[in-house]
């Protein structure tokens, strides 16, 4: 998941993201290394705890349709627990980063790296850590699942909040200072409302992306540890083990229902509500709508229910006006010196991290393992690249066609967003059945699975871009009778490019994640495998081979980050500089 902004929101957020330095700087490196070192330490600690085999007494999932609503609810609750954790994380970490320059130096690159890391690869670490915290209880496994979902959601939310805090409108900041609002009042009156539209959009996109991880996190094996949490993901996994076609279909249906409900009862109402916080002095033409939100607004009961909360908000602590701020800025020389000391401290931590990783990996791995991981990485890279290209060739023309027709785009857009939220791993069994039945080559035919769920990001972003093409340019293109190729080259493609890049970046990030579950799939005892880094990680996770999991995860992170820095960021920067329509 990447930091996203809605087409309706100020695309400037994206711009700011794009304008940041293209080349990885030393902080990126340090951040990456620190994350890696922590992972290594976690595993090291967990291994020493010597987990007992099947220590977890989880209730087995029963394939009974009557129990399905309960399982769906359990899965949904996990999602909401994760989103709650993500919001808390966002408020704390992003606020610290925005207020403290020193923390910012470390936190921002960390967030940036974290949001490009394929977290499926780190499954083994998170799982081991939490089960290690609460051995012999289901609680640890629950926490592990929630933490996995959390890691798929938190970073872009925190990033969006941080960006908002850094770009508060100057005049409103001055008003707040002039009236001596306390930091607490300032948060509620200025910072949170200003950040709300972007944060809500990112939260909603995070939740959409999160269903994939909900399904993936409920049923897994790391070495001798097997976890099966009650939920749709476990239901699906058990159905696959038993080759129970009907139960798989039930799971697909249940997920579809859950996502439609989530879309109608959560996503749309909240986006419609957040429209009020858009920082614009004019009413927006294209207001997001939600029947459920309108309904809630009209009911009396809801308003009654809301009243105590309003009272609570109003009673938030106030502070007395303080004396005029008289403090002068500290000596710049001292500040510079302190900055240097801080950077030195971070650098020392970085060196220690490198040493830790190196010691761990060199004790357990050989150079040939490294070469193998990189070789497989290139195979998966080839898959991702080819599939993004194919998806582009298919969805860009279709998206433009839809986007240019307002009636169609209004109908299709929700469908595309629904499909993007739908966890593709639920559909995998059908593909496997097909491959088995027709004896196809898994190396080729498993590949489409990695883009199955993420291609929709390309579609709905292109649709958004095409419907945002300004009418006067459309008319100009019409008046001068632009030939069809010229029309695409000079008008349509440049116009949708910024949107396309957003979609393609999300799709490619999601595809790397999906490769961990898509390159090894099974149907009963039939196991299909494609050669690739995803399969490498999946196998190592299954076997509880931590050094290889660490190696695979690190190599995959390097691939994703390199691709972001060398392909997507420059494309963003280019689009931002040359192709802005407003």
């Amino acid at each position, binding site marked *: 998941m990447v930091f996203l902004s809605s087409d309706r929101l100020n695309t400037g957020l994206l711009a700011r993201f794009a304008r940041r330095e293209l080349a990885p700087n030393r902080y990126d490196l340090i951040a990456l290394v620190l994350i890696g070192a922590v992972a290594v330490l976690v595993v090291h600690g967990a291994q020493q705890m010597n987990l007992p085999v099947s220590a977890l007494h989880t209730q087995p999932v029963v394939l009974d349709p009557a129990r399905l609503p309960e399982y769906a609810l359990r899965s949904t609750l996990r999602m909401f627990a994760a989103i709650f954790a993500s919001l808390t994380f966002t408020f704390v970490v992003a606020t610290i980063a925005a207020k403290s320059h020193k923390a910012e130096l470390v936190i921002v690159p960390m967030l940036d790296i974290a949001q490009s890391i394929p977290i499926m690869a780190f499954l083994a670490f998170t799982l081991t850590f939490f089960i290690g915290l609460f051995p012999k209880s289901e609680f640890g496994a629950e926490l592990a699942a929630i933490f996995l979902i959390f890691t798929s959601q938190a970073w872009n939310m925190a990033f969006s909040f941080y960006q908002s805090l850094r770009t508060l409108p100057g*005049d409103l900041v*001055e*008003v707040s200072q*002039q*009236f001596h609002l306390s930091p607490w009042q300032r948060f509620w009156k200025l910072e949170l409302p200003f950040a709300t539209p972007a944060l809500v959009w990112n939260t909603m996109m995070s939740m959409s992306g999160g269903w994939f991880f909900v399904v993936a996190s409920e049923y897994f094996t790391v070495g001798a540890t097997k976890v099966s949490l009650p939920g749709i993901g476990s239901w699906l996994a058990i159905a696959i083990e038993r080759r129970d076609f009907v139960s798989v279909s039930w799971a697909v249906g249940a997920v579809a229902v859950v996502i439609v409900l989530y879309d109608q009862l959560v996503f749309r109402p909240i986006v419609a509500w957040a429209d009020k916080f858009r920082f614009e*002095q004019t009413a927006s033409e294209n207001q997001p709508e939600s029947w459920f939100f309108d309904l809630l607004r009209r009911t009396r009961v809801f308003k009654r229910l809301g009243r105590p909360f309003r009272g609570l908000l109003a009673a938030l602590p*106030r502070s007395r006006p303080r004396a005029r*701020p008289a403090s002068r800025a500290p000596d*710049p020389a001292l500040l510079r010196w302190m900055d240097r000391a801080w950077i030195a401290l971070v650098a020392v931590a970085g060196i220690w991290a490198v040493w830790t990783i190196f010691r761990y990996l060199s004790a357990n791995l050989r150079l040939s393992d490294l070469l193998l991981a990189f070789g497989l990485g290139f195979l998966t890279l080839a898959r991702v690249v080819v599939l993004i290209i194919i998806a582009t060739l298919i969805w860009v023309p279709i998206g433009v066609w839809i986007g240019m027709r307002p009636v169609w785009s209004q109908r299709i857009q929700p469908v595309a967003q629904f499909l993007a939220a739908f966890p593709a791993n639920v559909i995998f069994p059908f593909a496997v059945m097909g491959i088995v039945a027709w004896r196809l080559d898994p190396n080729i035919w498993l590949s489409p699975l990695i883009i199955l769920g993420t291609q929709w990001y390309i579609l709905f972003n292109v649709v958004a871009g095409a419907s945002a093409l300004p009418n006067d340019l459309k008319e100009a293109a019409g008046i001068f009778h632009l030939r069809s190729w010229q029309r695409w080259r000079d008008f349509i493609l440049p116009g949708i490019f910024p949107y396309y890049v957003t979609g393609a970046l999300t799709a490619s990030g999601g595809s790397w994640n999906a490769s961990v579950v898509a390159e090894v799939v099974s149907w009963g005892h039939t196991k299909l495998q494609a050669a690739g880094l995803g399969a490498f990680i999946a196998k190592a996770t299954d076997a509880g081979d931590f050094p290889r999991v660490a190696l695979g995860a690190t190599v995959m992170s390097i691939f994703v980050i390199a691709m972001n820095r060398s392909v997507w960021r420059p494309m963003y920067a280019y689009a931002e500089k040359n192709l802005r329509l407003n």
Partner: protein
Amino acid sequence: MMTITLDRPSQSTAPLVEVKNLKHVYGNGGGGAGLLVLDDVNLTLRPNEIVGLLGRSGSGKSTLLRSIAGLITPTSGSVTVSDMPGDDTARGVSMVFQSFALFPWLTVQKNVELGLEAQGVPADIRRKRTLAAIDLIGLDGFENAYPKELSGGMRQRVGLARALVVQPSILLMDEPFSALDVLTAETLRTDLLDLWSEGRMPIRSILIVTHNIEEAVLMCDRILVFSSNPGRVIAEIKVDLPQPRNRLEPAFRALVDDIYARMTARPTGPVARDGNFPGTGLGMALTHVSTNTLAGMIEAITAAPNSGAADLATLARELQMEADELLPIAETLQLMRFAEIEGRTIRLTPAAKRYDAADVDQRKQLFAQHLLAYVPLAAHIRRVLDDRASHQAPATRFRDELEDFMSEPYAEETMDAIVSWGRYAEIFAYHEDDDRFSLDDPA
């Protein structure tokens, strides 16, 4: 001083605000020279007066206002804000912003309540005072509206109500009417003056920043005229005209014209011919004025009734421009020897008259000659391009040279100006993609 005597609680003349030897430098955190925006400014604000701070952009008048508001800590000097003696209810300062600075997610009422809430005023009193302020400022019926539903004039009324509801003794106004259209601005000014002269506002004194000379003369009892780069007080003018003032009255006009002359007056010295552009030679900071605007100005001064020379204040009125819009154009013409400015008169040179009569290509040639002859940076870039075998040079090279003389924003503006003038004159080409100059010409 204002001739209408007012019934105010105290006739004390102890100053409400005293600013002494104020100096402010922007951006010297990095150890560089920084940009001196205010230099040795003194100001005294007494009860019962409206004081205007008048100056062009870059004269630091907003910085001064923000120092008084406590939003900026000046580099050196002192700012003392005192309340009225005795038990006057009005306390401290409050501010009205050019951009209105309303919170779009709060209703009119919530916006106005903001300052009271910060002070911890109980809800019922808060509500009472807010409604009274809304009533005073003519916003009844809009209590539950959101700012986006209001016109610009109504938004600024909210800004005013919000500033007044906390009962400040001093009202600071930062170009409060400049984001409004002419008619709306006039209505708001009149309403404000009425409230002031009737003593219905809690405030004891108003300090208003403006770049509109007529506005200053219309409203103020005293006007401080600022020079730019750095900002210094170059004149203090008392306005003794009775309220309400009439723009068409000769005394009013004379005062406006006089202030125009003071604002165009430039520091004495040998660089006088370069207008008000700070720096000389390569280090001259240019203002980016479009060549269309320059041509339009030459045409306007040539045309009847001006026939080659015009009074700046009259010209500004004719063209409906503010002083700080007109003056950079006039000074650019002067820099390129297309015009001379003497006192408040601008007179075209013979070259400008030739320019006016010429066709498009001749105009470009004439402009090119003057650009190369009188703008050292243009000649320098051209020389470098001529000398190089490739006839190309990266723009960063010149930008770096400029930054030896001036701060980054000025260098940026100067580069923008030279690129646009050079392109029009066709003395060199500039390629935005890779940020370089070249001699090649698409023609």
